C-alpha cells in the first residue's frame, strides 16, 4: 500500500484476475460445442480488435486496412503448414512475423501523411490489393474456391493432462488456446501502454506536433505501434486459419471483416483496454444469440457503427469505469468504539 493509487490499482488488478479466472472456467460449466465455438471466435476476433485498437485507439494512427494483415498471416501460416507439412505451432509465429513486417510497410504512409482521409484511402486501397492478390493467385490459394485442408494444431503432450488435441472434437482445448492468445494480447498491450512507449503513443494521439516538439521520435513510435499491432493481428489471423481450416479471400480479406472489428471496438470503447473484448462479446455473441439476425448481420454491424459514433462514442467499457462500484467495507471509516 504505497502511493495514493495503490488501493485502486490493487482492486483493478484483482478484478481483472477474477474476470480472467471466470472466463477460463467457462468450459467447466458449459460443454456444448456450439457455445464454445462462439466463445472461440469471440476470443480470436477480440485479439484482432485489441491489435487494431492499439494502433488506432491508443496511438491515434487511424488505419482501415488491418484485415489485410489478418489475411496475410492466415494464408501464410495455412500455406506453410499445408504445403511444407510444418507444424502450425511454428507457422503461426511465422505468419505473425509476416504480419509484423507488413505492419511496418503500412506504417510508411503514416510517416508522411497526417490527413486521416488520405490515410484511410491508402490503407483501404492496400487491403483491397491484398484481397485481389489472394483471389487471383489461384495456383497458390485456389482463389474464390477457398483454401481447404488446412492442418489443425497438432496434439500437445502436457504434464497432468496428457495428450491434448485441437482438431474437431478438441474444442475445450482450442478454447484455452484462443483465450490464452486473447489474454496475452490484452496483458501485452496493457504493459506496453504503461511503458515509455505507451506514454509516447498517448502523446502522439493527442497532438503529433506537440509530441514532436517535446522530442518524441514520431517515426520510431509509429513504426512500433504498427509493428506491435501487426504482430497481434497476424497471430490472431494464423490461429483463425488453423481453427476454421478453410479460408476464402472474402472471409479474411473482405472489407466486411474490418467493418466488424471497427464495430466491435467502437461499441466496446475505442482507446480502452477492455473495449475490444467487450465489443467482441457483444457482437459475435449477440449475433449468435439472435440467430434470426444472421442474414442481417452486416446491416446490424453498419447500424451499430453509426449509432456508436453518433450516440455512444465513449463505448461500454468507459461507461463501466464511471459506475460507482460499492466500496469494500475495509475502506469505510470505522466507528470508534471508545466514543459514544
Amino acid at each position, binding site marked *: 500500500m504505497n502511493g495514493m493509487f495503490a488501493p485502486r490499482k490493487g482492486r483493478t488488478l484483482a478484478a481483472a484476475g477474477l474476470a480472467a479466472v471466470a472466463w477460463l472456467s467457462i468450459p467447466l460449466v458449459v460443454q456444448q460445442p456450439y457455445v464454445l465455438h462462439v466463445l472461440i471466435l469471440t476470443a480470436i476476433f477480440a485479439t484482432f480488435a485489441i491489435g487494431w485498437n492499439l494502433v488506432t485507439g491508443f496511438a491515434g494512427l487511424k488505419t482501415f486496412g488491418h484485415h489485410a494483415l489478418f489475411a496475410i498471416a492466415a494464408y501464410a501460416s495455412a500455406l506453410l503448414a499445408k504445403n511444407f507439412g510444418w507444424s502450425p505451432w511454428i507457422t503461426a509465429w511465422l505468419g505473425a512475423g509476416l504480419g509484423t513486417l507488413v505492419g511496418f510497410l503500412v506504417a510508411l504512409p503514416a510517416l508522411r501523411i497526417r490527413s486521416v482521409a488520405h490515410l484511410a*484511402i491508402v490503407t483501404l486501397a492496400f487491403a483491397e*490489393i491484398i484481397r485481389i492478390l489472394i483471389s*487471383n493467385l489461384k495456383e497458390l490459394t485456389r482463389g474464390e474456391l477457398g483454401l481447404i485442408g488446412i492442418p489443425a494444431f497438432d496434439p500437445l503432450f502436457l504434464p497432468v493432462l496428457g495428450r491434448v488435441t485441437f482438431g474437431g472434437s478438441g474444442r475445450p482445448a482450442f478454447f484455452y488456446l484462443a483465450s490464452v492468445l486473447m489474454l496475452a494480447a490484452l496483458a501485452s498491450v496493457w504493459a506496453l501502454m504503461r511503458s515509455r512507449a505507451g506514454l509516447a503513443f498517448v502523446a502522439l494521439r493527442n497532438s503529433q506536433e506537440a509530441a514532436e516538439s517535446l522530442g518524441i521520435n514520431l517515426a520510431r513510435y509509429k513504426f512500433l505501434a504498427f509493428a506491435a499491432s501487426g504482430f497481434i493481428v497476424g497471430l490472431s489471423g494464423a490461429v483463425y486459419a488453423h481453427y476454421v481450416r478453410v479460408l476464402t479471400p472474402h472471409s479474411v480479406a473482405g472489407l466486411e471483416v474490418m*467493418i466488424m472489428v471497427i464495430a466491435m471496438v467502437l461499441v466496446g470503447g475505442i482507446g480502452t483496454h477492455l473495449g475490444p473484448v467487450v465489443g467482441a462479446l457483444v457482437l459475435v455473441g449477440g449475433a449468435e444469440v439472435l440467430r434470426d439476425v444472421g442474414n442481417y448481420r452486416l446491416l446490424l454491424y453498419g447500424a451499430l*457503427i*453509426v449509432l456508436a459514433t453518433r450516440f455512444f462514442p465513449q463505448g461500454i467499457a468507459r461507461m463501466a469505469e464511471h459506475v460507482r462500484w460499492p466500496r469494500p467495507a475495509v475502506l469505510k471509516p470505522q466507528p470508534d468504539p471508545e466514543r459514544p
Partner: protein
Amino acid sequence: MSGQLIEQIVNGVILGAIYALMGAGLTLIYGTMRVLNFAYGEFYMLGGYAFLLLTSAAGMPWPLALVLAAVLVFAFAAVTAAGVVQPLLARPGWDFSTIAATLGISIALQNAALAIWGERFQSVPYMVDGTLEVAGLHIPYQRLLIVAAAAVLIAGSAAILSFTRFGRAVRATAQDREAARVLGVPADRTSILAFAFGSALAALAGMILAPIYAVSPWMGVPLALKAFAVVVLGGLGSFRGAVVAGLLLGIVEAVGVALTSSEWREAIAFAVLIAVIWVRPWGLYGVERSVR
C-alpha cells in the same frame, strides 16, 4: 488501327464523363465538410433503385423519374447528413468518426438494399434507342446521352457554385468555416445541403448509367472506388481537379484495357492511387498544407 484507337478514346471520354461527375460530387462534399463520404457509392446505388422503381413499378416517363429520384436521394442524403455526419463534426476525433460512420452507413445501406430488393441484377431499358454512325464509329445514343447529361450536370454544378448565393456560401465554408460563420454564412446548413447536393449528383450518375450497368445492391462499390481515385488525383476538395482527373482516368483506363489483363486492372489502379498519394498527396489542384 487508328479507328480502333479513336473508338477507345471515345469510350474513354464517355467513361471519363461519368468519373468526372462522380468525382465532382464527392469532392464537393469533402471540400465543404472535410468529410470523406464512404457511403458515396450507396447514394449512386439508391439513385439506380429509385429510378428503376419509378420507371418500371410506377410506370413514370424517364425524364420525370430522373428528377423525382434525384429529389428523393437529395432528401435522404440531407437527413443522413443532418442526423449523423454534421453532429459528429462538432466533436473531437471527428476526422475518424465521420469516416467510420460513413463506412457503417455504406455497409448498412448495401445490406438493407439486399434485404429489400434481393441480390438479383435488374436491368433498366435504354432511355433512347438507336446508334449514331459517323466515320465508321458506332456509338449508341444512350452513351451520347450519358456524356451530354454528365456535361450538363457538371456545368450546372459549376454555375451554381460560381453564381448563386448557395454556391458562394459553399465556397466560403470550404475556405474557412469559422470565418464564414462569423460573416453570417450558415455553415452547418450549407454543409448539409452540399452533402445532399453531392450525393444527388452520384444518384444521377447511377440513373443515367443504369441502362448500361445493371442495378444491384453492390453497383456503387466499383464506381465509388473510381470516384475516390479521381478526387485524390485531382486534389481532395478541388472541383476542377476532379473533372480533369475524371476525364483523364476514363481515357487512360479505356486505352489501357487492351494492354492489361482485366483481373489485375483494379489492383494496378489501387497501386497507382497509393503511389500518387505517396508522391503528391495533394493531387493536381490541391494545396500542400491540407495534407500534412
